[in-house]
């Protein structure tokens, strides 16, 4: 090739040749990482911008006075003060605490008892499991609506019991401020305990069979074996299930919207509903941000100690 090359072209050519050389020396390593990195781009983008960035953004903007649109006007802890003065918020916190505590306790107890019964080498195990688990396949909206119908005072449970003779029986959660949260609890337990039962059953099945034999030879009655030997052995399963349930409780939203729409009045308000209503219906973004930051805090309070116990401990041992 007798073409005359300009100095720029020559230099560019030299640089290109040099970098090609570098790549040629370790082609596999660079390319290998590159492909994996390309494949992981969605995860990286999501983790950074949505999960991490989005959360930080919301927290930052909770310190502003954004109304209809986000606005960077700093107001310090104003939103939080106002939040905790709102009756609606206080009620939603109370509700979520009652619902959370009862849901946790009952889910674990019912789930474990069902799992223990299913573990007794019974017939029709698959049938029973199908029955206990199918609610989990349904939407919370479906669950809320059907239980709303069942708890209907005119046609539902109250009327049935009354027609059987107990004419003064009153069970009207949907219209009674004091017990509406229990109506929601019944529906929530109906949907969620099947999952807990499955997890407990898996945990039970993982117990060494010889432990049962040894307890039998020792003459320990079955209930005592469960209580004093098996349950302590299942501590990891209980903890995992607990964390799972706890992190899902604060998200309670669809069920309330469907079953009671937050009513009667504001008696069954929950934090998640407060957030949505303020953000998208009430034109009060910053209040919504503050409320959601509070929700985040409540989850972190459970999550961080658990994560430390699970993973921090291991690192120390190594």
């Amino acid at each position: 090739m007798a073409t005359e090359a300009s100095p720029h072209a020559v230099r560019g050519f030299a640089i290109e040749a040099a970098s090609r050389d570098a790549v040629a020396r370790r082609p596999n390593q660079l390319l290998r990482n590159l492909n994996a990195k390309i494949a992981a781009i969605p995860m990286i983008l999501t983790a950074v911008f949505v999960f991490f960035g989005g959360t930080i953004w919301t927290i930052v903007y909770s310190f502003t006075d954004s109304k209809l649109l986000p606005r960077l006007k700093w107001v310090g802890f104003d939103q939080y003060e106002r939040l905790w003065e709102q009756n609606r918020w206080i009620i939603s916190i109370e509700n979520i605490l009652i619902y959370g505590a009862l849901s946790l306790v009952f889910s674990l107890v019912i789930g474990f008892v069902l799992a223990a019964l299913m573990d007794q080498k019974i017939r029709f195990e698959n049938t029973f499991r199908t029955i206990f688990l199918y609610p989990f396949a349904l939407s919370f909206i479906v669950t809320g609506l059907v239980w709303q119908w069942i708890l209907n005072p005119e046609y539902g449970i109250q009327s049935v019991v009354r027609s059987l003779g107990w004419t003064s029986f009153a069970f009207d959660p949907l219209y009674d401020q004091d017990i509406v949260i229990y109506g929601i609890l019944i529906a929530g337990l109906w949907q969620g305990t099947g999952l807990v039962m499955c997890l407990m059953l898996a945990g039970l099945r993982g117990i060494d069979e010889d432990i049962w034999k040894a307890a039998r030879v020792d003459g320990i009655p079955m209930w005592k074996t469960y209580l004093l030997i098996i349950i302590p052995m299942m501590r990891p399963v209980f903890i995992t299930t607990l964390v799972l349930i706890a992190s899902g409780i604060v998200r309670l939203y669809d069920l309330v919207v469907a079953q009671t729409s937050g009513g009667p009045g504001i008696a069954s308000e929950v934090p998640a509903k407060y957030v949505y209503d303020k953000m998208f219906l009430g034109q009060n973004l910053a209040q919504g941000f503050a409320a959601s930051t509070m929700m985040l805090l409540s989850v972190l309070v459970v999550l961080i100690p658990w994560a430390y116990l699970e993973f921090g401990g291991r690192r120390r041992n190594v």
Partner: protein
Amino acid sequence: MSSVSHVAAGHVEPAIAFAAGPHGPKPRPAFSPRNIMIYGTLLLVSIYYLLPLYVMIVTSLKGMPEIRLGNVFSPPLEITFQPWVKAWAEACTGLNCEGLSRGFWNSVRITVPSVILSIAIASLNGYALANWKFKGADIFFTILIFGAFIPYQVMLYPIVIILREIGLYGSLSGLVIVHSIFGMPILTLLFRNYFTSLPEELFKAARVDGAGFWGIYFRIMLPMSLPIFVVAIILQVTGIWNDFLFGVVYTKPDVYPMTVQLNNIVNSVQGVKEYNVNMAATLLTGLVPLIVYFVSGKLFVRGIAAGAVKG
């Protein structure tokens, strides 16, 4: 009865005579207290679980007059499918009276692309994390997993902004992206755990043969992963079809998914409530995930157990 002596292999001379008394399996009556307690409890609890399904079906097959006369548990005297027809094609949701069918097709158009997209992304992710570790991968993954635990509310608005910027806020595609984003943590975990459990020798042999990232994925990993893909599909179809929060935040009324429409039909109607139509509509909305559930059986259990176990 005297003992018989044998010398051939398999028999040994007994030293004591056969005595009368208990022999064979211990008699265990079918109706022992233990059995009554176990099956009794299970049956009682089953009633609690089956009741709503029964009520849904029974109510949706009655006419309104019959409903007013009876209660939620009474079976229909006269079966009618009119509520179903009305729920599907004529129920009103504020703006129009086209029934749930519109929401159904919206849900289909949301679920199918979301399932495909989220599983494609997550399976590649899990594969990259399991076999091709690179610097920083674990940090991003940890953030991802944390993202699965923190309440969605805290990320709702930033996503609204992002979608508005790219012009997809309120559209089906926007919702598909949202579902893919929030499906990533659990699915990536699922796939990563699965791929890590595959024998490493397979991967190494393929590398020795000269296959690269994509080649190994398509020619070796995918064909071996059918079970986990089915589990992921089950998880996603159920989760996305049943979603309400994202549907109500990120879509405009004409592309509402079925769950949002259902809630509107039942809860926003003023005046006379048509309970049978409501229950028919509820049942219709729950039908798709229920069918998935009953068909998939054990795989469903495996899916939720896998999704629930943290890495």
